[in-house]
Each structure stands twice: as C-alpha cells, then as structure tokens.
C-alpha cells in the first residue's frame, strides 16, 4: 500500500535539469579553476625567462667588471667614464659608461639598447656648464659607492681631483631592462684596486 506523502511535491523542477542559477554558479567556479591552472602554467614559463634574464645579466656584468680589472687601475676612469674626450686612444674609442647585453631588451622608455650603466666615484664640477667636467672626488656624496672615502690611500678625505692618483676605485653597475614580468633592475658593486705597486 502506498502512503501519500504528507507534503506532495507539486514542482517538477529538480528532475528537469539544471536551473539557470546552478549554471551561473558552476560556470564561474569552472572558470576560476581553469584560470588557476593556466596561470600556474604561465608562471612556470615566466620563471624560466626570469632565470634566463638573471643569468645573462649577471654574466654580462661580471664580464665587464673583469675587463675593467684587466686594465691598469689608472686607465679605468678614462676608459669607463661618461666623457668620450678623455679616452686614452682618442675621443670615442673607449667602451664608456654604458653597454648593451645580448638578449636583454631595453626599457620601453629607453633611448637606446644600452641597458647597463657604470657608475664611478666622479662628479661633474662644471657647475651646470655645457660641457661636463668629471673629477674623481673623495668628498663626493655618493652613498651607493661608499663615498665620501679616501681613494688615494693617504688617510685624508679632501676636495681635490684624484683622477690621476686614485688607488681604490668603487664601481657600481646598474642594469635596467624590460623583463618578462615588466621593468627590472639589477645592481652589482665592487671595489677595484692594485695590491702590487710597481
């Protein structure tokens, strides 16, 4: 004997398929799950590019620092400063203070492909004149390079030009480029010196 349900179902909705509300709830959940999956895959791909960028930039900067080390200490400032007219082999013959790195894209607002810049403990003493006059100065306030500091090892920090007699030379290389995740910057620093005085 079949006993009638006390509250007989009058609606047939549950047996006719999904309601619009159910579909609307399910779709975003599926979309979120799919986007999480794809973002994970994309992040792994970007990680590879970041790793590659880091390697290229680091090796390139180290190579330039080693090339600087290969020069006589006294020649490093004229070879690698921003001024082309004091280049030892004639104006414009030295590497200068900026260089490009193969496979590394410049920033979108960069003037050229030279993504790296070398900073030396030098300041422009022209007073805003049309032609900059760069001097290696112990009294320059350049905290990134550890200045003021004694550069000619006479135990005095003075306001003289030490372009010709410095014996230690702090160097900072800054690379700014357009990376896989957007603008990136890497900085490497060292101090060049000669332990043996001939």
């Amino acid at each position, binding site marked *: 004997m079949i006993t009638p349900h006390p509250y007989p179902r009058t609606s047939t909705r549950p047996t006719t398929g999904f309601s619009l509300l159910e579909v609307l709830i399910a779709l975003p959940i599926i979309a979120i799950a799919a986007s999480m999956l794809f973002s994970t895959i994309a992040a792994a*791909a970007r990680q590879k590019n970041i790793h590659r960028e880091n390697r290229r930039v680091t090796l390139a900067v*180290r190579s330039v620092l080693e090339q600087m080390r290969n020069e006589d200490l006294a020649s490093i400032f004229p070879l690698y400063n921003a001024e082309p007219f004091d280049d030892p082999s004639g104006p414009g013959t030295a590497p200068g203070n900026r260089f490009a790195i193969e496979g590394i894209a410049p920033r979108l607002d960069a003037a050229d492909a030279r993504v790296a810049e070398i900073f030396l403990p030098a300041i422009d003493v022209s007073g805003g004149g049309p032609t900059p006059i760069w001097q290696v100065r112990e009294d320059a306030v350049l905290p990134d390079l550890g200045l003021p500091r004694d550069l000619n090892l006479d135990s005095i920090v003075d306001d003289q030009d030490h372009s010709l007699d410095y014996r230690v030379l702090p160097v900072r290389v800054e690379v700014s480029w357009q990376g896989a995740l957007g603008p990136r910057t890497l900085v490497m620093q060292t101090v060049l010196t000669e332990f043996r005085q001939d």
Partner: protein
Amino acid sequence: MPRLLHSRSGATLVEVILAITLLAVIAYQGVTVLSSATEASTEDTAEVMLEDQAEVVLERIAKAILGSSRESLQPAADAPFTTEDLRYQVHLGIEDGEVVWSDPEMIGLEDVNESKLFWASNPDEADSQRVVWTNLVRPYLEGEIPNGMDDNGNGIIDEKGLSFVVDRRAVTIRLSLARQTDDGEPIVTTVQTTVTCRHEDEEPDVAP
C-alpha cells in the same frame, strides 16, 4: 498526468548523444591543452637543466682561471688566437715567503669524443687525474658551422663548442652545450664570461 510521467522518464537518446558529444569535445580540448602544457613544461625543464649545467661548468672554469696566473696560461698567445684547451697553475698560498703553485692543470675537450669537457691534473703524467665536467659540448659554438668562416660574427672562425680567448690577464670563455629532449627536439645553450687571472708569477713552472 502525462507531463509528470514524461519528466521522470530520464533523458532522451538525443539528449544523451548531445551530452556525450559536448563532454567529448570539452574533454578533448582539456586534454589537448594539458598535454601541450605538459610538453612545454618538460621542454622548459630540459632547457633550464641544460642552462644550469652550462652555468655550473662555466663557473668551475672561471674559478680555476681566477686562481691562476697569466704567466702559467698555455697556450700563451693573445687574442684573436683561440684555443679549446687551456693549461694553468693555481695559486695555493704562501709558504716561507714563497708562492706555492699547484701542479699543472688543464681544461679542454677530449681528442676522440669532443663532446666531453674534462679537467685534468698533471695532464702529461702517467698518473694524471681526469674528471669529465660535461659530455654535452657542441662540436662548434652556437651559430658556427665548419665552413672556414666566422658565422656568428664574434671574429673567430669555426669556433669550437668550448673556446678560450686570452687578452693580457683576461680570459674569455665561451661554451655551447647541446642535447635532445625526450621527444627528440634539439636544445642548445651558450654561455660566455670573462675572468681575469688574479695572480702574478714571474717564473712559471709550466713547460713551454
């Protein structure tokens, strides 16, 4: 109650076929995406591993040269001369006021199998110790083919997969590694750096 009976009778054949077709299409698309993502990930992993190996080998070579003296480098000719074998001695320290140098060491490519890059101590002696640092060296540097020309534009003709260019105290090291992925896809990576010998030795102990 014909409507109620119909609603409880289950899906029609057309509905089932439509549903199965839709599910099959969605599943196929999903599997295709996942498969290509997995394949790309596997290839990326292989590339990164090759790059890591190249970097590790390059670092080993660089550190060996950093600890040597310019006078101990053999062959001693400056750029544009290039070589795939380099001999050197490493500064071990100072004893009784004298610099102590290591036995002669060598980094180069095997004669028979040029894909093997090895380090050797006392390379000319019978008791020479050899360690293979990688066996994935490309026959020629990336971009080079053996045609008597400078294909990659770096000024060196038919440069080998490992090359040393000496410029005064600095040595530029270039290394190209190559391997195949599990799918047979060739992957190549090239690394390059320059290092400077940190030491000086007026009377090198290396035979000319």
